[in-house]
């Protein structure tokens, strides 16, 4: 394999992954409500998208945690014999 062919192979594979990365970043941009709603498509930098993605993921995790708390509190507070308890039990048990 000549060195020139090797180097063109290397640069073409990095070109492919650069394109892939650009494409993935624009997909991320569309997934994040913060960016999708507030800005026009082409003015957000890659680093901003990455930063907002991290924040979004942290917020989603926090929300899931809070919801688990609320559900726990709810189950603590209901009288197990009440009709409401039966409804809630069916919600949670399927």
């Amino acid at each position, binding site marked *: 394999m000549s060195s020139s062919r090797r180097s063109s192979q290397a640069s073409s594979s990095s070109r492919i*992954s650069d394109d*892939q*990365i650009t494409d*993935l*970043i624009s*997909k*991320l941009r569309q*997934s*994040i409500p913060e960016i999708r709603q507030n800005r026009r498509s082409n003015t957000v*930098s*890659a*680093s901003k998208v*990455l*930063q907002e*993605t*991290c924040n*979004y*993921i*942290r917020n*989603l*995790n926090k*929300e*899931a*945690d809070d*919801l*688990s*708390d*609320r*559900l*726990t509190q*709810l*189950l*603590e*507070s*209901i009288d197990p014999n009440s009709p*409401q308890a039966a*409804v*809630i039990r069916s*919600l*949670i*048990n*399927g």
Partner: protein
Amino acid sequence: MQPTSSMNEEFLKKWQMGLQIFRPSIDNTSVHERKKAIKLSADVAMASLRKGTTCWSRALIEKTATEDNFLVRQMLSGIKAEALINKKLPKKIVCHRKIVRRSKKILRRKSKSASEEAAAKAKRLVKRRTQGLRNVVPGGELMSNDVLLLQETLDYIVSLQTQVNVMRSIVDAAEAEIER
């Protein structure tokens, strides 16, 4: 990509199954343990939607198994639980910051034009943000390939949205029920 209704349904079923598994021991547990069971079953339910096909879901299952092995095995029985829990994940990539910083200093000694500097700065920022992303996506530290990291992130986000939307609906409905 948005969560589909079939994802929502599947998540709900699996989460409910996890809650059922926990139920028998409910009288002997603390509030804290009950909350943990709710959260852990939600995480396993979310991860199992991917049936072991993504890195983040395998990493999340492995992490949850260290916190409640029994729950995870029960929830995954039928989807090759053993294979997922014992699956050897690739070694973590350890980046020795001091060495990297020192080698970068040596490279930087060459003088650069303003625009080259700006481009280099932007590149460093993107690298830092990408590392931040690795820290929040389960198994992220194992993904050295940036393309893989971004693909996994997209999938993880859709799954998290599913988890949160379904949990929110259930909790809202339950709270509404109590207020009647």
